[in-house]
Structures are given as C-alpha cells and as structure tokens.
C-alpha cells in the first residue's frame, strides 16, 4: 500500500476550508484591504497574473498546510497602499513601501489561516515575508501542487494573490 499518498490525500482534504481555497483567499485579501486601507477591493475581470511583475511578496506556509502565498502588484500600487496605511504619501519604492507591502501579505496569510478548518491554523506556521522586485524574473508554481489565484483591484490598481500548495 502507498502510505504516503494516503497521508498526503488526507492532509489536503482536512486542510481545505469549507468555502474552498479561492473563496477563502479572496475573503482574506478583501478583509485586509478593507480594514487596513478603508476601501473595498473590486473584482477585475479577465485579469491574469503577469509572468513578470514589478513586485512579488511571498510568505511561506509549513506544517499541516505547506506552500507559498504570493501577492503580485506594481510598485506604483504598493506605494499607493502603503501611503493609505501610513497616512503619508510614499512616492518612492523604498524601505517603507517594502516593509509595508510585506505586512499586507503577512496579514493576508494570517487572515487566510483563520479561515481554515478548526485545528489547522494551530498546526500551520508562516515565514517572514520576502519581497522580490525588478523587471526580469519568473515565478514557477510547484509541480504536482495545487495553484489558486484571485485577481482584484483597489483604486484602479490591480493586484493578484496566488496560493501554491504542495500535496
């Protein structure tokens, strides 16, 4: 008998929120933006995560749920969001904006974890955020894993949140 396959199957089945991955991810993202920035996100139709983004923030998940949650946006959007959070205009993609966008991703993961079935949150750890910026990089999803993405917008600035889970 293939024990590992059975264990992995069981782990994924118990970790998935009752509302499904996509709904939970979208709800978590909306919650963070509405509470911390004060403006609801709107749906973006036919938006695809860009292969090359200005900015990607990654937060790792380990334990009962293993994978990476990533937030993708433009540097301009990041400046806008952090300006809203701090109440002071951020015109440059500097330390404040990098720190702030990392916190946004961190809070999205925290909110997402709380939407998981009872007990899973306690057994799921998160890493510190990593911010990647530039114009020449590619992100590759885990092979054989599950990929979930949601696209939304805030004040005309799009964002994409992706979740790559290892089975």
């Amino acid at each position: 008998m293939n024990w590992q396959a059975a264990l992995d199957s069981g782990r994924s089945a118990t970790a998935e929120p009752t509302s499904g991955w996509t709904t939970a991810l979208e709800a978590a993202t909306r919650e963070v933006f509405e509470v911390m920035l004060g403006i609801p996100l709107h749906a973006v139709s036919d938006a695809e995560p860009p292969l090359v983004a200005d900015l990607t923030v990654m937060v790792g998940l380990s334990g009962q749920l293993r994978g990476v949650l990533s937030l993708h946006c433009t540097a301009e959007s990041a400046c806008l969001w952090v300006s809203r959070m701090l109440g002071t205009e951020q015109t440059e993609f500097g330390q404040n904006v990098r720190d702030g966008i990392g916190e946004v991703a961190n809070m999205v993961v925290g909110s997402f974890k709380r939407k998981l079935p009872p007990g899973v949150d306690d057994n799921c750890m998160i890493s510190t955020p990593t911010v990647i910026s530039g114009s020449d990089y590619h992100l590759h999803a885990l092979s054989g894993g599950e990929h979930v993405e949601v696209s939304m917008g805030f004040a005309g600035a799009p964002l994409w949140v992706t979740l790559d889970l290892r089975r």
Partner: protein
Amino acid sequence: MKNVLIVDDSSVMRKIIERCLRQAGMNLSKVHEANDGYEGLSVLQENAVDLILCDINMPTMDGLEFLQALATSEEARRIPVVMITTEGSEDRVYEALSNGARGYIRKPFTAEQLKEQVAPLLEA
C-alpha cells in the same frame, strides 16, 4: 498623558499602530518603538512605560520570550501588555495570555478594536 512602547519588527506596522492610537483619541505623551524583544527590554531600562503593544513573530527575541523576560522583573510585570499579531490560533492566544498578556488583537485591526482593548488598560 501616557507613555506607550510598541514592539514590532515592521517599522510600518509600528507607525500604523501609533496612528491608530492617536486616531482613537488616546492621550499619549511619548511613543517608544522597538524592533524586537531585546530592544524592548532596553527601552524599558531607560524609560517609564504605561502600556506595551507587542507583536509575536519577531527575530532575535519574539513576543512570547519578551513576555517571559518581563515576568522576571517585579516592576516590568506590572506593565500591561497587549499582543498585536497575525498569529490568531487558539494555541497562540492561550500561550500569550498564560504568559501574562492582558489582551490580544489580531491583524488586520481597526482603530476602534485597538481602543477597545487599550483604553481600559490606560485608564486603570
């Protein structure tokens, strides 16, 4: 007028917390900042503080270790500590409260949620 210490490894989050406290009408004299638990202990050696707001996940000395360090000092253990963190699991909340935290706020939070937890502790 009260003195507050904010311990969080994100400088932006420290500024957001201070902004929320002031938005909520808290009467603050001085807001001290620390990047982790060790820095927080250094601030407390030099300054009188009425309330501490503290993250859990931080480098070097995390929020729970910071609570344990405070408990070893007769004077420091009297300062109320409210945890502000993305870690919202029941285990973490229990661990923080059993180590002496007086409140627990999950990020994201509003100024009103912050006020609800903080105001009674500053008025006491």
